[in-house]
């Protein structure tokens, strides 16, 4: 086990072969990013390029009764104006790749509204101008009349009898009802029986508020038409998927469409999408034969780029009095928003398998309703389904501990999978690969300084200090490395989960690695170079990693779900193995030795027992480029490619502990200390791993404390700028104490488990559990996220949960402020 608090630099100067994997290599990507020599999509300028601006609906639900674009068309420097009617025949529907049930209702998703708008921000007209400002100015000249329709915002109201419909074409606002029952699946016992037999049942309702991914680079797309070929540059996580989908939507043949993701400024799932504006830019470029650029403003981004989370979770746990958990029952309401985008319905389904967490439940049943409302669609956001599941189980374990009067950590220990039980098949049917929850926990307790903080907590309680201290745990795991293609197929996902790589050995011995995984901040260029340097025995500096362009990286399934290293990196390693295998034949030929007598080490083939007889793989690259002398019957190339399809997910795990100060007078909460130990399998670059954990923590903590997309009663996004949608700054976040244990993943050649989402998944419940631990003795049972000072103050002041236990009727209100003490309140402040 190792603990990485201060990663050390690789010296990089030693001549002796040095293992690259495990070195804290400084990133290759940085050189351009720290000097401003970047290629963000919005930087692109092409001759004759026109700019697209989008007129967006100010109403959440309405029929378009009149739309007059005459004045806009005549405005100076406006080239064209289009409405939904103009594009209705050719726009198709934004695709949904995840029909989670056979009878899932998908009403279709036009890129631009034709007759009806279903959320604020939906496109109703587009202006094409010679400049960004000309297009923006002309938007103000367009007149639209809307006949308002009843606005559907609250999920529980939306599926009540007689509720107004978001879509006229559907029978209800329910898109699907998805069920996983372990009893029926044969992975667990009968859930109803487990609950009937239980000595203790604890039931809670948790709200996963709506979040906005809020990547720093706004979305941007440029489409260049050349004859019947099109090149699309887009700030996307998924150039490969986007190409397939855009071709299918527009009818442009796939081989006539090239998609490029240049430098991309963050995604977090938010750029795992086929955007209406990408389709519109393509359609307009086809019509006008001119390059088209669209770059969103931040306000447009917050209003129209897909959101995440937004679930109501009813969670029941069954246990005996000794604290052995028996059964878990989850009923989920998931807000789809107005439409189904790329994987909108699949996000809660992906989470379905993670609700049991690391615990040995005997029985489990999961049900989920996907519900339409007049809001922007939800879709992937860092963790996508798994943070919601982890939150629910880690919160309910604390609630059970309170009910039983047990220490929350002891309850976890009693029920988690022990290190000697791996691989372990859970009640949800997943085979957890490896890990050791106890060791990670011990290390996290040490990093936190647990005993001292518990002592301080006791002192503050005894002295009735206005600032109380709490400690919260999250002992989590997640499913990463998305994903085994056959498993995805069994879940009705529209694509596989493999990844592709190829390696090109250049004549001078330099190496080009082409990956189908598309980075947007993760550091692939550095980590992949480390993988290849070790595999081929070439210098780190001699490797160039190419990505993000369908003309260069012909096959790929892109970056999301903590899959890049686990799946994409494994493809690179497999491709390198093939390069070595091909080079071995050439080496044997040139060294006049038998292949079986060759050893490959440190980039060289040596003949066993013949000192001095050796040939480097970089020399072989030159030899085979010349191709003057190579064996009969093989091709003159040592380039190779590989596609890796994992047989299982990987399961990173960790223990996160948060110590939280709560000012009971104001409700202000402040993280006192945060310690976590993650097991992400093999660590290729500790610097990158640590950075991923830090960033994930920031987002998970932000869900707990700061962020929420709030709609008013009319369906307007109240948090439509960064003034109101609160991203934490450096001044708002604590120092993180991080560490690692390493248990290699057996399912891939690297042994990596994935790290992109870990911090984000683990931290949210740790933070909320900590806040509750600080004020539970004051009668507080729950506080709805984000833990605004007002909510915390009301919870402390009124007891119970601060008035948020009542059914969530106030989703559309600016603030949930029901003030009646909740049922089950244990009394107020002393």
């Amino acid at each position: 086990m190792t603990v990485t608090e201060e990663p050390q630099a690789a010296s990089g100067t030693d001549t002796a072969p040095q293992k690259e994997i495990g070195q804290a290599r400084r990133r290759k990507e940085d050189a351009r990013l720290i000097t401003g020599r970047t290629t963000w999509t919005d930087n692109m300028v092409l001759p004759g390029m026109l700019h697209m601006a989008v007129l967006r609906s100010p109403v959440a639900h309405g029929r378009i009764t009149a739309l007059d674009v005459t004045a806009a068309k005549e405005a100076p420097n406006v080239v064209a104006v289009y409405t939904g009617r103009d594009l209705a025949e050719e726009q198709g529907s934004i695709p949904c790749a995840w029909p989670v049930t056979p009878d899932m209702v998908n009403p279709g998703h036009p890129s631009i509204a034709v007759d009806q708008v279903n959320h604020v921000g939906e496109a109703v007209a587009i202006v094409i101008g010679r400049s960004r400002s000309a297009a923006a100015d002309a938007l103000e000249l367009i007149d639209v009349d809307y006949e308002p329709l009843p606005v559907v915002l609250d999920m529980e109201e939306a599926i009540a009898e007689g509720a107004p419909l978001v879509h006229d074409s559907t029978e209800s606002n329910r898109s699907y009802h998805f069920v996983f029952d372990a009893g029926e699946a044969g992975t667990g016992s009968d859930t109803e029986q487990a609950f009937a037999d239980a000595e203790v049942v604890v039931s809670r309702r948790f709200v996963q508020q709506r979040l906005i991914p809020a990547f720093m680079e706004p979305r941007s797309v440029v489409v260049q038409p050349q004859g019947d070929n099109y090149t699309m540059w887009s700030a996307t996580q998924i150039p490969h998927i986007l190409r397939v989908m855009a071709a299918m939507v527009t009818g442009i043949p796939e081989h006539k469409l090239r998609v490029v993701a240049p430098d991309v400024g963050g995604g977090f799932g938010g750029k795992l999408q086929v955007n209406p504006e990408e389709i519109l830019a393509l359609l307009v470029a086809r019509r006008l034969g001119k390059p088209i650029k669209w770059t969103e403003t931040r306000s447009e981004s917050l209003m129209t780029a897909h959101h995440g989370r937004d679930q109501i979770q009813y969670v029941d746990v069954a246990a005996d009095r000794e604290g052995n958990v028996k059964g878990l029952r989850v009923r989920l309401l998931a807000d789809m928003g107005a439409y189904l985008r790329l994987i909108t319905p699949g996000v809660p389904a992906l989470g379905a398998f993670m609700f049991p967490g690391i615990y040995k439940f005997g029985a489990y049943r999961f049900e989920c309703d996907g519900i339409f409302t007049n809001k922007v669609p939800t879709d992937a956001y860092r963790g996508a389904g798994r943070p919601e599941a982890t939150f629910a189980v880690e919160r309910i374990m604390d609630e059970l501990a309170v009910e039983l009067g047990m220490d929350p950590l002891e309850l976890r220990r009693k029920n988690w999978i022990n290190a000697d039980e791996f691989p372990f098949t859970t009640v949800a049917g997943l085979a957890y690969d490896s890990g050791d929850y106890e060791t990670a926990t011990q290390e996290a307790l040490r990093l936190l300084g647990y005993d001292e903080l518990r002592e301080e907590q006791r002192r503050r309680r005894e002295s009735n200090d206005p600032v109380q201290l709490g400690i919260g745990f999250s002992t989590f795991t997640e499913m990463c490395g998305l994903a085994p293609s056959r498993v995805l197929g069994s879940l009705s996902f529209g694509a596989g989960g493999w990844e592709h790589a190829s390696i090109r050995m250049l004549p001078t011995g330099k190496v080009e690695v082409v990956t189908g995984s598309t980075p947007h901040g993760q550091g692939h260029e550095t980590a992949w170079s480390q993988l290849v340097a070790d595999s081929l025995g070439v210098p780190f500096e001699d490797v160039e990693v190419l990505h993000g362009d369908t003309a260069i990286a012909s096959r790929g399934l892109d970056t999301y779900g903590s899959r890049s290293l686990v799946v994409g990196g494994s493809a690179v390693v497999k491709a390198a193995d093939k390069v070595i295998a091909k080079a071995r034949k050439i080496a044997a030929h040139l060294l006049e030795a038998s292949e079986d007598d060759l050893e490959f080490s440190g980039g060289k083939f040596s003949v066993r027992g013949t000192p001095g007889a050796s040939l480097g793989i970089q020399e072989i690259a030159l030899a085979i480029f010349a191709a003057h002398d190579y064996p009969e019957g093989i091709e003159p190339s040592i380039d190779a490619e590989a596609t890796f399809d994992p047989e299982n997910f990987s399961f990173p795990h960790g223990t996160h502990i948060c110590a939280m100060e709560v000012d009971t007078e104001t409700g202000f909460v402040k993280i006192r200390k945060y310690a976590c130990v993650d097991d992400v399998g093999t660590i290729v670059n500790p610097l990158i791993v640590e950075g991923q954990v830090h960033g994930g923590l920031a987002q998970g903590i932000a869900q707990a404390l700061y962020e929420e997309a709030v709609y008013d009663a009319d369906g307007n996004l109240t948090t439509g700028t960064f003034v109101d949608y609160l991203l934490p700054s450096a001044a708002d976040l604590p120092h993180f104490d991080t560490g690692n244990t390493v248990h290699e993943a057996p399912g891939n050649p690297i042994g990596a488990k994935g790290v992109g989402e870990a911090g984000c998944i683990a931290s949210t419940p740790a933070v909320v559990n900590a806040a509750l631990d600080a004020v539970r003795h004051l009668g507080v049972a729950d506080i709805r996220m984000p833990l605004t000072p007002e909510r915390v103050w009301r919870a402390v002041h009124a007891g119970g949960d601060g008035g948020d236990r009542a059914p969530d009727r106030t989703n559309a209100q600016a603030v949930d402020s029901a003030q009646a003490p909740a049922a089950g309140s244990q009394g107020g402040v002393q």
Partner: protein
Amino acid sequence: MIPAPFAYARPTTVDEALQAIADGGEDVKILAGGQSLIPVMRLRLAAPETVVDLDRVDELRGVREDGDALVIGAMTTHADVLHDPLIGQYAPLIAQATETVADRQVRRRGTFGGALAHADPAGDLPSVALALDAEFVIAGPNGRRTVPAADFFVDYLTTALEEGELLVEIRVPKLAGQWGMRYEKFNRVAQAWSIVAVAAAVRREDGHIAEARIGLTNMGPTPLRARATEAALAGAEASAEAIAAAARSAAEGTSPSSDLNGQADYREHLAQVLTRRAVSAAAGL
């Protein structure tokens, strides 16, 4: 986004500025530091016909003494206010509050006068000006007039400035005696506007509070004084108990709004807690 087109004037003197405002047509906006105005124009929530930019009116910058008052030029940036020795000596409350305004870059451009003329009740400086009984010197076509802070803030985003007028300087009385000051700001993240904040200046004499001045941020459509608390503190013992008792009336006469960050009753509660804390700190407790 990009602001809608506008005509632009860049005067270099107050007289030129007044002329530019007079010539600017129906809808003139005065651009001071621009840190509130430009975002609002980018969002096209404001689309003025003319923008009169005071950036080059040098006579409006700087802090000077004038007898018993400090005179702060309206175009003095927050960054300059922060580092000004006179402010540090005679009105540290202004420096304390200014330090909490937005962030480093915004404080480089944003101005003292601009923030006051914008009169956002969630802004930090209006309540400070009110607590210190500042006076506002306004230039107009007919000369200059001086308006006390109590009359300057009229309503939400509305001041005593009439059309064609310009805020040129703010006079802050130098406080005599032993004053302690504290700006207690409460917000959710560092950059955010105040949910509530309290500006307190306290003069102590012989273990008692001789005089307290308390300005409240975001407790109504304008900045307010906590008059009841001030009255209760006058002559009171400088003790935690006395201050706590006086602070309970801090929200009297306020009319805070309810929004995303807090309902009115929560703001009233915060006003009491923050007043207690600010006065205690200002009183050296």
